[in-house]
């Protein structure tokens, strides 16, 4: 079950066959209606679906209005450096900022983490590898450092160790920069996690106290999820203990801790197949343990789910601080704490928007900046860098943000397999 989010045209759907092969019990009438209308449909509310989803599980709630939308094909090869320069020349930034290629041919670049000696470790989506980017003769080169994993999207560097999260295993690699030709044997420091692959790819948010916040996504588009997912946990890699932090969350692949308060803020991808202009993806703020952010009952703070509302009202749940936009797909994010950028950027968040697939007119494909009070009040959002679109043609898909030691921003793009650098000069 590897090629999910980027598995474009693997999309031949077969509601009938899925049911035949045990894709889940579907009320006969609903199945006939869906079949008769030619719309793709899967019943995603069963353990069988979660453990053996069809390759195109995310297409299972197709509607007439959005019929035929499929995720982006991705790119078999990294975008060449020459082509990247051309693309970056079109990216708009505020005055004084510029964007350049920091490293090209970094396969499916996802979450980034910098080692003590300046090695950049980068996760991938479904290539199963973690790359190490180093400078060789003045040029940055990415090499596979860890191989043989499944979906190691999340990485972090803490206390001289590289941590990698691969669906249901959190690995620790001690002192990885000692020998970049051969990764040390890892230790599994936490694995009390469900094995579900759909939305199972994760991100690591160091909390600054030695623990990680880790998101868990539901193995469906919209369903009553297993209780082991749709949540954030805070995990201690030193001894494998964990606490449940927040629930009612759909697919989050990015978060950051506010340096002013220590609070967790996280991006969240809302459900698909409700429409081009609903619901919005979200930026959320955790203020106390056990907060419920609405999924699957309520979306974007004010839309009760037509099927999974189950009698609830949106007022029962914590609304987002910012509705980021329909299907923009916010992923990696960081609070800015550097001194290179002008003062107004300090303690604000940069969020990478991977870009939409479940919308006729594409949305996202850019980086936004959100400034907000430490109490979560008075948010202001602006588009910071973008867009990686040429009309409806995708030029790139930002997936993560990292602040470099000099205060510039590194941006990972898993479509072009490149890392960009955004710097500011007066």
């Amino acid at each position, binding site marked *: 079950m590897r090629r999910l989010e980027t598995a474009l045209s693997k*999309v*031949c759907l077969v509601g009938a066959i899925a049911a035949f092969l045990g894709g889940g019990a579907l009320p006969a009438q609903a199945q006939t209606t869906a079949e008769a209308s030619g719309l793709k449909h899967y019943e995603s509310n069963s353990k069988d679906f979660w453990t053996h989803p069809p390759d195109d599980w995310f297409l299972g709630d197709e509607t007439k209005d959005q019929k035929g939308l499929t995720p982006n094909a991705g790119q078999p*090869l990294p975008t060449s450096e020459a082509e990247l320069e051309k693309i970056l020349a079109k990216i708009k930034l505020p005055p004084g900022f510029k964007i350049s290629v920091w490293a090209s041919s970094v396969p499916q670049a996802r979450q980034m983490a910098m080692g003590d000696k300046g090695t950049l470790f980068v996760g991938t989506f479904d290539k199963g590898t973690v790359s190490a980017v180093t400078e060789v003769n003045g040029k940055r080169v990415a090499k596979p450092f860890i191989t043989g994993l499944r979906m190691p999207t999340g990485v972090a560097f803490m206390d001289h160790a590289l941590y990698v999260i691969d669906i249901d295993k959190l690995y620790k690699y001690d002192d990885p920069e000692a020998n970049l030709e051969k990764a040390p044997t890892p230790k599994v420091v936490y694995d009390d996690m469900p094995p579900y692959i759909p939305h199972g790819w994760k991100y690591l948010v160091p909390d600054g106290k030695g623990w990680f916040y880790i998101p868990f996504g539901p193995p469906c588009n919209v369903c009553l999820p297993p209780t082991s997912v749709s949540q954030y946990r805070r995990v201690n890699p030193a001894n494998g203990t964990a606490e449940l932090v927040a629930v009612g969350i759909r697919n989050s692949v990015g978060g950051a801790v506010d340096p002013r308060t220590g609070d967790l803020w996280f991006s969240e991808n809302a459900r698909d197949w409700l429409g081009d202009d609903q619901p919005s993806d979200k930026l959320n703020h955790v203020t106390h343990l056990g907060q419920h952010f609405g999924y699957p009952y309520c979306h974007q703070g004010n839309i009760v789910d037509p099927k999974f509302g189950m009698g609830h009202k949106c007022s029962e749940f914590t609304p987002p601080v910012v509705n980021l936009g329909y299907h923009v797909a916010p992923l990696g994010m960081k609070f800015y704490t550097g001194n290179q950028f002008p003062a107004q950027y300090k303690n604000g968040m940069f969020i990478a928007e991977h870009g939409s697939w479940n919308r006729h007119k594409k949305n996202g494909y850019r980086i936004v900046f959100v400034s907000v009070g430490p109490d979560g009040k008075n948010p202001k959002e602006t588009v910071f860098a973008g867009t990686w679109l040429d009309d409806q043609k995708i030029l790139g898909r930002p997936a993560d943000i990292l602040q470099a030691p000099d205060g510039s921003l590194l941006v990972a793009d898993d479509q072009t397999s490149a890392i960009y650098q955004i710097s500011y000069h007066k």
Partner: protein
Amino acid sequence: MSARSRLVALAAAAVLLAFPLAPSLAADPPPGVAELVQTCASCHGPEGISAIVNTPSLAGQPDIFIQYQLVFMRDGTRKVEVMQEIAKNLTDDNIRELGAYYSSLPPPPAQPDATAVDAGKVNAIISQRHCDSCHKEDFSGQGETARLAGQRPDYLVKALSDFRAGARRGRGMGTMMEVSVTLHDQDIQMIADYLAGKP
């Protein structure tokens, strides 16, 4: 001479017997690619339309689809014996150029040797499996999904049978196995003939 190279040489020889030694290529490829394309043409045909059993036509295949298949063959993910020696030496730029070149060629016309089929019967099979969602309603393919219209029927039989058996590696394996696993051999033949006969 290794078994592989012998096979490539044999295949090339077989084609060269049927075609002039230096076939003139449709829509002249850019200078760097012309030499590469000569190698491809020896099996896949001078216009990307194959005259060899079990060798697919490449003309009009989507760019990304061609790139993915070459990348898989180069990595060894997809094992096609005759392609192994050729693919392993391809650079990223070669792959991009080949994708661009073959996708720009006029697609094969409806195959003349495709047996006439009962369209009603085929549609019953196809519509249930939503083939058009990926392959499009005219079966011209898109993105990483292959063009099926006008493809050699013997190759379509081979590809569907390989997917059904789980023998075909690369993208689409899971979905394609799911749609083909309940197909009988005669269904596969019928579908292949139907698609081959599509303009």
